Every structure is written in C-alpha cells, then in structure tokens.
C-alpha cells in the first residue's frame, strides 16, 4: 500500500529537524563555542521558522536544473561569438569590475556560510546556511566560466584572483567581507544575509543584469539571473534571522540595531562601485543610480523598516545621508577611476555628448553644476594628447578604504573630512558613518591594510607606479588606462569594421 503523501511542512520537518540529535557526552557550549560571544540571547531554537520549506533533495533537483539551463546558454554564447553582440566594447569594462570586485566575494560568502552554519545549534539555521554555502560556490564558478569567454578576447580579466588581494580599489570589497567573516556568527548573518542580501543586493544584481540584457550580453544575464534565483532564499534567510533574534530576547534589540547601522553603511559605501557602473559603464542605460536608490532603498527599504518597527528596529543611522548623496556618488566614483585609470585593470573614458545629456537629465541639480565642467576639461586635455592621470596617491578612508571622494552634505564641492584619535595615532574617515564604525571597534580597523600606506611602506613591489602596476600583474597600456587608446578599442573597431587597417599589437590582437 502506498504511503500517504506528506505535505510540504511535514516533509520539511522530517528532512531537517528530525535529522538532528542531542549530544550525550559533550556539552552544547563546547560544541557551539561562538554562541555567547556577541551577547545575543537565544532561548529556543525550535522557534526558528523556515519560510521556504526546501529540503535537500528538492534543492539538488532545482539547482541541477538551473545549472543545465545556464550551461546550455553559455555554450551557445561561445559557439555564436556572443561577445561580438554587446552594444560596445566599453560595456565589457563593467564585467571586469564585476569579476575583480564581486566574484571573489561570492567565494568568501561560501566560506562564511560554511563557517557560521557550523556554529548554530538550530538545525533550521544549519540547513539554510549549508544551502547558501553551496549556492555561493556555484555563483563564483558560473561567473568565472561565463566571463572566460570574454577573457579570450578582451584584456584585464586574467589576473582577477591575484588582484583581489592587492589592487587599491579591490581592498574596498575585500575588507568589507573580511570584516564580516571575522565577526561573530550572528553579526555575520546580520551583515551579509540581512543588510547586504536583503536590503542592498537588489541594487547590485538587478541593475547589473538588466544592464547586461539591455547591452546584448546574454551570457551575463543568464549567470546573473541564475545566481539571483538563489537570492530569494538568501534574502529570506536574512529577514528570518533578524526576526528570530529579536523575538528571542529583548536584550538583543540594541545589539542588532547597532549591527544594522554599521552594515547598512558599509554595504552602501561598497555599492558606490555599482552606482558608477550604472551611470557610466553601460552604453545603453537602464535607470540611473538615483532612480534605483529611490526604488529599491527609499521605497522598498522603507516598507521593510516599517515592517520591522514592531520589533523596535528603526531605519539605519545615516540613511538620510544616502538620500542626499544619491545625486553625487556615481560621479565621484567615476571621477576617481578616471584619476587612477593607470592603476586599475579596466578602462575609463569621458562620457560623450549624448551621455552627458542623459546625466544632466537624470541629475538636474548636480551634474551640470559640479561634474560636466570636469569632463569637458578632461576631454579637451585628452584631445591635446594630455589625458589627465592623477600623479599622486589618494588619502583613503580607514573604514571603507575608498579614497576620500565624498562631499560635505551642505557643500557638494567640498571634501568631507572626519577623524579620530586612538592610542596616539590619527585615523581619517570619509563620513560620520565610517567614523562611528571605527569608534565602536577601533581594534578591528587599526590593522586595516590600506593600499596607499602599504605602497609607502614598501610592501607593493616598489616605489613607482610602474612597479606597483607590475606587482598587480597588470600590463601597462594594455589592461589599464584610457579606453580610447586601448587595444580593446582597436580590436573592437576592427572586428566591427569601424576601422579598416589599424595596427594592433600582436600580443593582444585576436582574429
């Protein structure tokens, strides 16, 4: 006689909680050593609710199907020279930014979830973390596989892993994740699952992938959405963990609020890179950073924090500053990479007339007033053969490690300086948000590996830009600098017949 079919809830319970056991000859506190270090009080792990009742067998089934679909498209993309279908070779630089800046974080997320999954006594949390650890590994693999097609034809991709631990701007995403992974397990989940995945990740993946679709990059759309289909689960874990912690004990509220304040600000600063990608690196643009921030943070994040108000949670500190800065940060970031294009493994350029019109229309209060004059000046200099590169190294924020490019909110043309003293040394910050984070845990940030200081201490291959670029494994004049003068552009013009017979350096010329 056939057994009665279990409903989803029963099946989930059998396949997760019922597989757990109690320890008989070890004490719980010896097995789960990190459970009390953060001051979070959990009374009853059985209260953990899993909104997605996905069991491991169903997980493998759906993930396997996702992979088959993805690799069918990657194969088709390679067989059909899909890299030639993108709107413009400038677009490919967005992928270089993604591969160097984001993909290594997927790997760190894999490690992070594997580690914290081990720390939680609750089996619901263990299973969710285990699935996410496998997801994140899948993400980094599929990203590398997809982008490898571009690596055959464009410069700048080949040393992403080496560069992640060394290049100045990559210390921004790297230090963000190192900060989270070296925190306790509850802070890690608040940082990555809630603040990053739930509150902010839409701003990373949705514009990136819509942008890829709009710019003819089928391969990236596919890996992006395949990864993003896991994201709904990750985001749900983020929301669940916050609700669970808050429901367990009233003492948890101030701890969680402080983490939300910290990790909102850290995540928001990290997204500066995405803001620049949206406004400057997509030849066909989907929406401006400003519009995306309004849609995904101000509206959607607003609803989320109204929802959480019943637990006593308020919106993250300094969120109002992000609303003022939405008119500025993408421009400030692109200007930074224009300044230091000789030290990054992708190209930058000044926006053309039509792009400047778009920027003026999207940023009516700031673009013409503060940023257009800069681009017009740079474009003139470039025409004269004097393309501007900043000859000095920038002052960095100790916390987010971004050069100090952000303005005072009451004068958007004036750099914001903040500083703290700690044990006889001065530390500098780009904002009140970054200063607060340092002041709360100075021991954590006095050991920051700040790339500019490391160069001056002699730890980065030498004293000159040439030495450092070599140490970064970048080929000067090929992987870096102005797009207009790049082999990427010359190749692209040749492949798309915009140029007839131009000399292409043999090492970088393809077909």
């Amino acid at each position: 006689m056939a057994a009665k079919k279990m409903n989803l809830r029963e099946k989930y319970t059998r396949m997760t909680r019922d597989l757990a056991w109690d320890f008989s000859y070890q004490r719980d506190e010896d097995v789960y050593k990190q459970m009390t270090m953060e001051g979070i009080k959990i009374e009853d792990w059985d209260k953990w609710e899993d909104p997605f009742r996905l069991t491991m067998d169903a997980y493998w089934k759906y993930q396997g199907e996702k992979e088959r679909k993805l690799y069918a498209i990657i194969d088709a993309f390679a067989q059909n020279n899909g890299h030639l279908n993108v709107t413009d070779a400038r677009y490919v630089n967005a992928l270089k930014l993604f591969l160097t800046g984001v993909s290594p974080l997927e790997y760190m997320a894999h490690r992070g979830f594997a580690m914290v999954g081990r720390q939680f006594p609750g089996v619901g949390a263990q299973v969710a973390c285990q699935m996410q650890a496998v997801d994140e590994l899948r993400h980094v693999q599929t990203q590398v596989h997809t982008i490898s097609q571009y690596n055959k034809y464009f410069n700048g991709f080949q040393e992403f892993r080496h560069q992640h631990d060394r290049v100045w701007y990559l210390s921004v995403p790297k230090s963000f994740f190192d900060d989270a992974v070296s925190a306790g397990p509850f802070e890690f989940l608040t940082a990555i699952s809630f603040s990053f995945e739930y509150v902010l990740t839409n701003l990373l993946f949705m514009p990136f992938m819509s942008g890829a679709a709009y710019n003819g990059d089928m391969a990236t759309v596919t890996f992006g959405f395949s990864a993003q289909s896991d994201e709904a689960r990750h985001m749900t874990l983020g929301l669940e963990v916050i609700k669970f912690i808050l429901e367990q004990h009233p003492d948890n509220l101030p701890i969680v609020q402080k983490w939300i304040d910290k990790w909102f600000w850290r995540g928001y600063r990290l997204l500066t890179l995405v803001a620049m990608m949206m406004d400057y690196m997509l030849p066909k643009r989907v929406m401006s950073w400003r519009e995306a921030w309004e849609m995904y943070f101000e509206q959607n994040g607003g609803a989320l924090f109204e929802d959480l108000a019943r637990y006593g949670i308020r919106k993250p500190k300094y969120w109002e500053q992000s609303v003022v800065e939405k008119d500025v940060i993408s421009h400030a970031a692109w200007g930074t990479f224009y300044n230091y294009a000789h030290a990054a493994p992708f190209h930058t350029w000044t926006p053309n007339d039509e792009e400047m019109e778009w920027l003026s229309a999207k940023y009516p209060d700031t673009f013409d007033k503060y940023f257009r004059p800069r681009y017009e000046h740079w474009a003139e200099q470039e025409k004269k053969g004097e393309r501007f590169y900043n000859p000095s190294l920038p002052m960095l924020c100790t916390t987010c490690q971004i050069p100090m490019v952000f303005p005072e909110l009451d004068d958007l043309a004036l750099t914001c300086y903040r500083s703290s003293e700690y044990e006889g040394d001065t530390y500098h910050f780009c904002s009140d948000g970054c200063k607060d984070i340092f002041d709360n845990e100075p021991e954590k940030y006095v050991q920051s590996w700040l790339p500019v200081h490391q160069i001056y201490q002699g730890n980065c291959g030498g004293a000159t830009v040439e030495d450092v670029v070599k140490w970064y494994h970048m080929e000067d004049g090929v992987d870096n600098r102005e797009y207009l003068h790049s082999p990427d552009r010359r190749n692209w013009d040749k492949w798309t017949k915009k140029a007839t017979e131009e000399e292409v350096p043999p090492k970088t010329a393809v077909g």
Partner: protein
Amino acid sequence: MPVNAIREDYRFPAKDVEANFHGNRVVYVGWDHHMMFCAPVAFPLPPDMPFSALVGEVLPNAYGMHPDFPQIDWDKVEWKLNGKPFTPDMDASLDANGVKHKSALRMRTPGLEGIGGSGS
C-alpha cells in the same frame, strides 16, 4: 575591549604607525573646491622637509596641471591643519610647523574655485 572576539587576546599592532614608513611620515593635502583631483592626496615626506619645499616642489607635481594652479597667490592661501586654521612658517620644517604623522593639511584659494567656478 569593545570588539567581540572569539579570543580574549584579540589585539593587533596598528599597521600604519610612523615607524613603518622608513623615516618618512604620511602627510595628507587637500585643495578645497578642486574635486577634479578626486580626493586629498597622501605623501610620504621627511619630517625635516621645509614647508616651502612642500609648496614649491611637492605640490606643483601634484596639482600643477590644474588651470587654477599657476594663478595661486601663496600669500593669500588659507590653510587648515587637522581642521584648525593655520599659518605655516615657510622656512620651518614640517615637524616644527606641527605637521605630524597622518596630519591633514587643507588649502583654500579664495577666488580660485575650480574649473569655471564649479569646484572641479
């Protein structure tokens, strides 16, 4: 100790103490309302360098390509050192001027407010 750490002895030396810079100290300089230079800049400088050498040798290499730079009247520059108004003694050393390790110097050049007055 404010950091929640697994280990009681969570303690690391500060990475950027002056002793790590081979006799130099890090000095930051920012030029207000000239954000074409995306951020203030950082220099490793000997503490006994005269302030006049910072102005006459270091800054031209950093900022000389800006159209406002040749027009600067150095007697009218308004300086700040670590956020406080400051009048440098050009002949004295950085150290004697109170420019310590990781000090931030800001200069404002009244009348010169960036390309087309845009703060760039």
